[in-house]
């Protein structure tokens, strides 16, 4: 098997006095689909937020593509990464948020085009073509010039995914992307994720409460509990063969 694209090595995170993560060790392989499940407050979201550089770990290392994300070498010492270093390393990572976070002052096409043009310095024509393609793929090819405020929650989330995909990430992070949606809009968003999982060869990390869906598409399932990975393995290993009582209790509550 090839080198992991992401490695967490004894990563701790605390907010003030509260220790959210107490030593996370984790490998994510290229193209691997990882589902992170666990009770709320167990630190699921914090894991992917640290990988996206939105949250700085208290200690430990996160290695992305062989490079330490939060530390860099300076005159032989490892020091805290500066913005330039972070930007270099996180370039392969994309993220979709619970609350979409679309840019309200831009049309949905502009939402998709801004970053490739300004960040990756690609030409406008190329980006435009690719953005339209992506928006078509998520079923919004007819809304290119609409503003986010004119869309439903499900549509907004699909735009957010297209926006992330246009950047051609090697790792995509999904942070409870259906939690803020009305129940009847969840399906359309999950369909898009399923489509990405099937056809794209990027690694995916899904933090989710959609248990059946996660177990269905995931190569690997992590059960996070009280700040540590309490259980990990394939879906069938984790669900059918785990003896972890808290996991069984958790699954029982979520699956009828």
């Amino acid at each position, binding site marked *: 098997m090839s080198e992991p694209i992401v490695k967490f090595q004894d990563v701790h995170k605390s907010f003030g006095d509260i220790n959210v993560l107490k030593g996370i060790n984790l490998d994510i392989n290229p193209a691997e689909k990882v589902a992170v499940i666990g009770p709320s407050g167990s630190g699921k979201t914090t894991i992917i937020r640290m990988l996206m550089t939105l949250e700085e770990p208290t200690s430990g290392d996160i290695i992305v593509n062989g490079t330490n994300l939060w530390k860099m070498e300076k005159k032989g010492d490892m020091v805290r990464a500066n*913005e330039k270093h972070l930007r270099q390393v996180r370039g392969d990572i994309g*993220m979709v948020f619970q*609350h979409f976070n*679309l*840019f309200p002052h831009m049309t949905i096409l502009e939402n998709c085009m801004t*970053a490739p043009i*300004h*960040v990756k310095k690609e030409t406008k024509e190329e980006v435009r073509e690719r953005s339209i393609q992506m928006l078509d793929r998520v079923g919004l090819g007819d809304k290119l010039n609409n503003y986010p405020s004119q869309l439903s929650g499900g549509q907004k989330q699909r735009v957010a995914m297209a926006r992330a995909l246009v950047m051609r990430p090697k790792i995509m992070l999904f942070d409870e992307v259906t939690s803020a949606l009305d129940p009847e809009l969840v399906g359309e968003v999950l369909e898009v994720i399923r489509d990405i999982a099937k056809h794209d060869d990027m690694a995916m990390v899904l933090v989710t409460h959609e248990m059946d869906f996660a177990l269905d598409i995931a190569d690997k399932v992590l059960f996070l509990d009280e700040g540590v990975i309490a259980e990990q393995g394939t879906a069938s290993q984790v669900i059918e063969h785990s003896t972890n009582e808290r996991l069984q209790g958790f699954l029982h509550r979520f699956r009828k």
Partner: protein
Amino acid sequence: MINAIIDIAPQLARGLSITISVLLASAIFAYLMAFIAGLCRLSQNTIIRKFTGLYVEVFRGTSLIVQLFWLYYAVPMLFGIQLGSNWWIGVIAIGLNYGAYLSEVVRGSILSVAQGQTEAATALNMSSFQRMRLIIFPQAVRMMLPEFGNYTIQILKGTSLVSLIGMTDILYYGDIMRSSNLSQAPLVYLLVLVFYFILALPLIWLTRKGESISRKGVAS
């Protein structure tokens, strides 16, 4: 009465150019100060932040009229600039005063752009400068529009103070006419007010326009 109006109005109109030029110049100066000070107060550098904070508190904590007179008497003494530059003193006083108020509007608007916007921009690998330029600032500016409109009306009202340091604005000519014929005072001052109101009308309209722009196109 009509005859009196025809008599008075052209006299007052002589002050229009000063009122308008002071309004425009001090508004531009105030906007400039607002953005400089507003951004400085968000700086990571403590000294810059504290220094700008001092400017804002001093100018918001004292009156425009006090600042105007202070500059009027102090500037020639301290810097040797002579009378005749009263226009500048008026513009500087009004600009610094309202710049301080508006800097709070700039700061508040930038801070009120939702945290999620910064995070989304980070996830798209934007630099902090790109985040500010492409995402935060354009949204913050939309939010600022109504307050900038309101304060521009305040600036227009504030320009009437330059008559007190000898600038020949609308109010100055009104005072001259009142002192030459006191019985005309009601009509003179009513017309002065009407002049200011006419100047305020486009600003009122722009403020309302700004309100409707700011209501849409901002993340909640």
